[in-house]
């Protein structure tokens, strides 16, 4: 169980958080203009990387804020945590 440094609350146990999957998938501004394939790409396709991955996390049992995390899925090392809308730091 990791310790996650919530950008709003500080360090908390992982049990307070829920994972929201891959980060930086932006909802298309004009979905109606997309082909089925393009929409499916947004809707269904997710990477599942063994290694460094960009993820969304939510402090579900805390401040309920969403934020982003860069995590290595092979060893659970958290490289960076940054707020929604911020550019991912280079790690």
């Amino acid at each position: 169980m990791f310790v996650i440094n919530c950008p709003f609350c500080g360090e908390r146990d992982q049990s307070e958080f829920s994972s929201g999957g891959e980060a930086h998938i932006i909802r298309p501004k004009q979905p109606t203009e997309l082909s089925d394939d393009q929409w499916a790409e947004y809707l269904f396709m997710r990477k599942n990387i063994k290694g460094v991955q960009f993820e969304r996390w939510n402090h579900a049992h805390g401040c309920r804020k969403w934020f982003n995390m860069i995590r290595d899925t092979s060893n659970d090392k958290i490289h960076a945590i940054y707020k929604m809308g911020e550019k991912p730091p280079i790690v």
Partner: protein
Amino acid sequence: MSKELRVNSKYIDQTTRIPFKFNGKTFYGFKGDTLASALLSNNVHLVGRSFKYHRPRGIMTCGSEEPNAIVQVSNDPSLTEPNVRATEIELYEGLEANSQNCWPSVNFDIGGINNFLSPFLPAGFYYKTFMWPASFWEKYEFFIRHSAGLGKAPTKPDPNIYDHQYAHCDVLVIGGGISGVIAAKLSAEKKLNTILLDDKKDLGGVSIYNNDDNFKINDQNVSKWLSNEIENLKKYPNLSIKTRTSLAAFHGYNYLLARENLTDHLNVNDRKDKIRQRLWKIRAKKVVIATGAIERPLIFNNNDRPGILLSSSIKKYIDYYGVKCGTKISIFTSNDSAYETVLSLYKNGVKINSIIDIRDKSESLIVKKVQDIGIKIYWKHTVVNTKGYKRINSVELMKLNEKGTGVIGDKINESCDCLGISGGWTPMVHLFTQSGGKLEFNRIDNMFIPDENKSPSEQISVGSCNGDLELDDIIKKTNLKTKEFLDINTSIFDSLKIQNSKEKNKKNIWLLPSDKALGKTKPFLDFQNDSTAKDVKLALREGFKSIEHVKRYTTTGMGTDQGKLSNMHALGIIADTTGTNMGELGTTTFRPPFTPLTFGAIVGRNVGQFFDHTRYSAMHNWHETNGAKFENVGQWKRPWYYPKNKESMHEAVQRESKAARDSAGILDASTLGKIDIQGTDASEFLNRVYTNAWSKLQIGKCRYGLMLNEDGMVYDDGVTTRLGENHYIMTTTTGGAANVLNKLEDYLQTEWPELDVYLTTVTDHFSTISICGPNSKKIVNKMIPDLDLSDQNFPHMSFKNSSINGVRCRVMRISFTGEHSYEINIQSNYAKNVWEMSMEAGKEYNITPYGTETMHLLRAEKGFIITGQDTDGTLTPVDLQMDWIVSKKKYDFIGKRSLYRSDTIREDRKQLVGLITEDPNEVLEEGAQIVEDLNKKPIEMLGHVTSSYFSPNLNKSIALAVVVSGKNLRGKKLFVPMENKNINVTITDTVFYDKENKRLNA
């Protein structure tokens, strides 16, 4: 207790005799004994039968690695516990223990016949034998299930109290042996907040009973030096010592679980109302693992007889417990450490028959001392067989050939009643690997040790778990490593004078040769699961290459002991046979828990009513007092129906449903989720999350909304009311409330942060009383006379602020039953009063409280869906025939694009329809399948029934269902096949009652 088998010991209380029962017979031991040491002192070696061959087995070790001496503790059906290691049970008054896996008794076990059948029961026997004919499996399974498993599970709930507790510390030291004590002292000295754990009742490990003059620290016996150090530890307020606490799991980020035993050592009568076990959840900044090493057995023919023990265990039994494991002992070894046992036994007057050593010689001081005493040592010999069915009575030995691959010369017979075996040591690297660490193979000592460069977190391993087996190495390296790890500058342990009399010289042969062919011998590897070296070799011959596959095929290392003793030998034999290097071969995965955990410790206090939260509405007491039966909806307890005069559920629901349509019904709707939505972009937000349009909804009006997932499937529904220009209140389904709020927050925070919208859950703040039926208007009028209830002022789908006895409330005119109806939302602390007022006001109209079942029936009559019952996450609004609620004009909303994906526009999707049975009294089963052609095999399933009731208002059975292309099948006759009959049904419209919605304004 046999006096001949007891010697003096200062480590246990030999003045307090404790009676206990083993297999129904009363024995005595001393306070401080384990069940194992007490049994040995009574000359009881045979304690159990092995799993597969039912061979007699005895106590083999003195710790958590014990494979054989696992017993069933307690005869009480709620307290009985299987598979407990006799070596870890501290003796207490009232202890009842029994042997497992034997019938009728451990002395005469019918299953022992398996031992004679063993040539026919090789590895993979079950896989090979019970595969055919396939149809026989059910018969095979019956017998296999009967022979599977060791102990018996309790049959009644566990009355004990278990606890969980969190702990945070700078340094956690695991293991209170000599290296753990040194590390803990260094850490405590540095003023670090430190926790020291040990699974035994006292600190000190094996060194605490090392009184041998061959080993000294600063000219003191190791035991004396260490007990002084332990005494000194007590002065540190920043050091917390927990004994009887076993580390169970080491997870990432230095998160560890440890189980503390609080009452298992107490007399049964002293345990009342005390917490039995506490599971510690520890978050440590740094971890020092000092878990020691386990002595290895040697693998030779018939190495499993009762009376064969690890040599180091024989030493602990004599030195610590004051128990002789035999009166004529032989020792079989590959290294010097067994000679310590010999000296301890000799000092206590035990006759040592002979020592069989596979090495050519040893020049160490300690061996010289043994030679000086005059004990016969057979150098370069090996045991080729042992004899004695229920207790060893002799060993047969032969000389090893030059390479150690075979035996030569004549067979020598040595009689003995106990054989100590020592095959070197296996560092306990389990915790290191659990935490994600990688091991390296030390070829000189033939052991896996932690690879320091591949440590996954802030941790070190010190002492013999790091592969340092000699006293001087252990102390010096522990001191240096800990100081560096904790960044400490102290010299307290720097200049200790250490005397060690052993040599590192050892010889390693994983599988010792015999004069017989391997196939004719039984060299056991896994003592609990009865897998032998023969089985491992068979697996290799049959093509299993990966050690994980060999493990599963032969079940080596899969017992409750997880192969702590001899997994290494299995690996060694695989490596030798295949010509692989052990380092490349690697180990099987060590998974938590290190020793079995009780379910009680895992669940802690989260049992019974604390298993999950239970939510009650503000009117719950009223419902209870008035005889409601309750239904679980999510965490809520909702009134299901209110039986009167011993009514059945069916009768109550029929009465309630009729009353609601004939006069007036009242429902507690408080559990529906309520989300307060405010902000200048609130209308825009609703436009984006619901399928229909919201911008034009006037203040004071309500609208039903349908919410989709981005994949176009219906997710939730409910009525949302516009309270002000920038203020709405949304209702959600009871079960979906939390998820809907999370989803909306997700979109607000991550996709549309530019929107000025704030969401607040107010589910618990307001309670909702729904009054419906043709007389509802009169009742509400009696309660709130000031409120103009005329259709002009207060039409269907509108809302008014009002007050009852000065308490503000929101009244909505909305309906889930199709009747004229009102919902009164009031602050929850007044809700019960208002409910009672409603009952009083409605008395003259026979106002009838109804529960969820009637609510479901009434809405089904109207064809209203319940998300989660009629929908299952695979239905679009079009599938539900609810196209009318999907805005064609809106540019976008969640899920819109998915509504015209190639899959969602298919005509042959399952669609919601109504079903009428040919026999109006036949009520369909929810979930029943619907088919068209009963003769075509396999029968094609067209859909299933989602809701089904007997409608008292229509006097016939009605149902909702999803059916392939159902929309175009109105009037079609289909079948619902049941176990004993086929029910004829006809597809209809989904609205069964009041199709013109006249009753809303009645």
